[in-house]
């Protein structure tokens, strides 16, 4: 099973978290981790703690903001949501990712010549 899981590529977690928040509306860290797990169908090997590092980075850049709310357990939890700036950034990042992914895909398709 282990060899079927993929590591999260450096720098992509931020984009995944941002997009998740954009799609789902305000979520706490646990909720984000669940959503990514669900979407990835258990393919990604995610250290869930790293979600919080991504959240902090995004917050420092002003792309998301946080508010205290109540979790399913009825305890205090921080809920994150995308800011307007974050929405704009998401477009840019997504576009960038697609470009890079496209290039990588093309490179991987290169046939051995000669």
């Amino acid at each position: 099973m282990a060899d079927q899981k993929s590591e999260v590529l450096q720098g992509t977690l931020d984009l995944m978290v941002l997009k998740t928040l954009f799609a789902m509306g305000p979520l706490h860290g646990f909720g984000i981790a669940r959503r990514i797990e669900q979407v990835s169908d258990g393919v990604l090997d995610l250290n869930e703690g790293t979600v919080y590092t991504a959240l902090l980075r995004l917050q420092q850049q002003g792309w998301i903001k946080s508010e205290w709310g109540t979790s399913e357990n009825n305890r205090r939890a921080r809920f994150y949501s995308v800011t307007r700036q974050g929405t704009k950034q998401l477009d840019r990042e997504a576009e960038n990712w697609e470009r890079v992914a496209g290039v990588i895909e093309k490179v991987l398709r290169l046939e051995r010549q000669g």
Partner: protein
Amino acid sequence: MQTLRTLWARLKGQAAQRQEDEALDEEIREHISLLEARYISQGMNARDASRAARRQFGNVTTLKEKQRALRGILSPSEWWHDVRFGARMLAKRPLSNAAVVVALALGIGMNAAVFTFVNALLLRPPQGVSETSKLIEVWLHNPKSGGVQSYFPFTFPDYVYYRDHTKSLEGLMAFDGDGTQAIWNRQGNGEILRGQLVSGNMFSLLGVNAAVGRTLVQDDDRLDNARQVIVLSYPFWKQKLNGDPNVAGKTIVLNGSAFTIAGVAPSGFTGLLVATSPDFWAPLTVQDRFSHDTSRMKEHNYWLIVAGKMRSAADRQAVQAEMHLLSRQAYFTHQSKNDPHSSTPVRHEELLDAMVYPLTLVPGPFRIYVGAFTGGLLAVFALVLLIACTNAASLLLARASGRAREMATRSALGAGRARLIRQMLVESLMLAGVSGASGIAIAGATSRLLIQLKPASIPLTLAIPMDWRVVLFTAAVSMATGIVFGLAPALRASAVKTAQVLKEESQTAGRKKARMRNVLVVAQMAACVVLLAGAALCVRSLMNANAIDAGFDTHHIALATLDAGSLGYPPEKVNDFYSRLLQRVQHLPGVTSASYAQFLPLGTSRISTSVGKQLIKESDGMPVDIFRVGPGLLHTMGMPLLRGRELTEKEANSEKPDAVIINQTLAEKLWPGEDAVGKRLALGDEKTMSEVVGIVKDGKYHTLGEGPISVVFLGKLPARRTLVVRTQGDSRALLDEVKHEIPVVDPLMAATDVQTIEEYMALPLFPARTVGWLLGASGLMAVVMTAIGLFGVIAYMVSQRTHEIGVRMALGAKRSDVLKLVIGQGILLTIIGLAIGLAAAFGSARLLSPLLYGIGANDPIIMSAVAVGLATIALLACYLPARKAMQVDPSIALRYE
């Protein structure tokens, strides 16, 4: 932008570390417990669920560390560690650190001292006034001319027009820019008070409430019903009236008229003008009780400084636009009202624009000059500070190479380069911090000293508080200083090639390091030449200025200014007072002669007119300065009469200028090569010709540095005049006696500016003195610091090369060779520095030339003296370490290490 935002977020994060730590803990706990709950619901037992949850979450400690590093710049514990370590390293070398701190503290302190003046003059808002950001001042400006002369205060009719027509301002106030003096009849004895005439709305617009009674109100200041009321200043009320709580409503006699005291202003309030602290404020409309100038309420008399209060601080553009408009309207309104047969000469027929400035204590148009002067001083002391910085930098550089092993070890143990740089910077910032703190103390002392340079004759009281702006400035300068002198050594020290340093046993100082220090010494030397050349020029010029022949005696003369007209006496009584006073004074022991002058040359007052050989229109003649004098004044002042005689009693009192005395320059201009005595000339718009009865030697009249000026001395003294008394002995001892004589003649009279001629001369000498003192001090500091710097570098070089010198000597080098080696290097640095410095000095000395007396800005003697002097000092600074190098014992040097 994004980087800035992240940095800001991190700075905020740094401040809230603990709080954020707790929040994160809470989040992690919650996350893990939710994971556990999920596993349990899937059928796991509690222990397995907990383990699985933790595995899925990852390493909590690593996460926390990472968050913390990401959140702030660094953790508090790391800061604390750096500071403690830095303190230990600094304590290891107390002596050299103390030297660095003293030099830096002097540099920072002098800058801060100058800044206290910048602050007091330009930055501090008026005290005791609310909503200063809404206040503006308005000046009339003649767009056709330039400089200070193109700005005018308001005339009274102009002020009224603007006040009544402005819509963008909440209100427009005005006050007398020159201030006013009054004689207070204090139980039969006269005492001089300083007052300021203000518009009735001023106190309410400024939000200044009376400490006792009430302030002035609009109703006090009506042209048709002027009330003789005044508001006293708090210090005057406290000191002269013993803080009488029932003072409001009482009467006080000023210049012979009774004024009702409305109230007392609050303690901090001194008005809106820098360096004035009036004893009382009176309404504008009672100005005729204080001034003999009958045209003040009319047009063409520009004497009111006008200030306004905006409705909101953002309105300045709109206010300026409206003022611009009002200036045109006022012009055309006055134009149509203007009586074509008016006898008052029209000073400005052109349209004057109105300019809006934010209100500070120095009036808007003059701010740029004050700013330029203080800015120049700051530049000079910044240079001193830079020299101190290079000193500190070369010391730290030397130390950095000594610490190469330490750095290498720390780097090998895993410290990143940024970490090492930070450690070094923390150390230099600590040095700078200590220097800054001492600098504040030095600034406090020197700024009080600097204010002593002000001539005593100017009745200015400048408050120079050390407020938060000064502290902030000093802190910023110290911080910048710390980074400037710390960065190069820090970068150098952190760029360690670990393996190399740890492997190598010998301590060969790298070539690069040596080059860096050499550059610093050269830069220091160059800066020092510039400062020293400037200082030497100014000191020499000060000596020249002291020696300049002002055209009158600058010793053995006592002066007192009197205004018998202010008591409302008729002309006969005024004349009677003055002649009786003169008689009494002439009979004082030691007095050789005494007389009156309207005012003396080289003062702040000046009257000019035109002169010609025929009675013609004013504009056709040549300009002359006129001085109204009494009989015998020239002799009393020690102005040498070249030909002819002085004015007689009768000529001096005559209404018409029948007889005049002219100076050499004018005589030469009007009658070149002829004897001017007996010739006749026409003055200004006088209706009759005047006969020249004497010719006096040329003197200085406006400034000490001026060229020849044409001057006419004539009679008809006004009521306000200066008593000039000449004595054989000490003029200072005479002052009290003169002061004592005045109330004997008339108990209600009081004199202002009772001073010796030496004190009087402080005013014309003021620019040369201030600049001479300040540059002299900065030059001296620069020399000492440069000598220490050079000494330090050479001494360090010797200590680094002890081994090499030992080898050389062992191989047969003579002591003289060693001397040559060591001194040679010092000399080379000195020569390069001198050359660069001299070039820069020749360039920048030109900026000083307007302040220099009797010496060219590029005086070759001064320049070569500076060069030779500095070279000698440099040689000495090199010689001491060189001597030590010569005494190296080869056997010890070789065994060393």
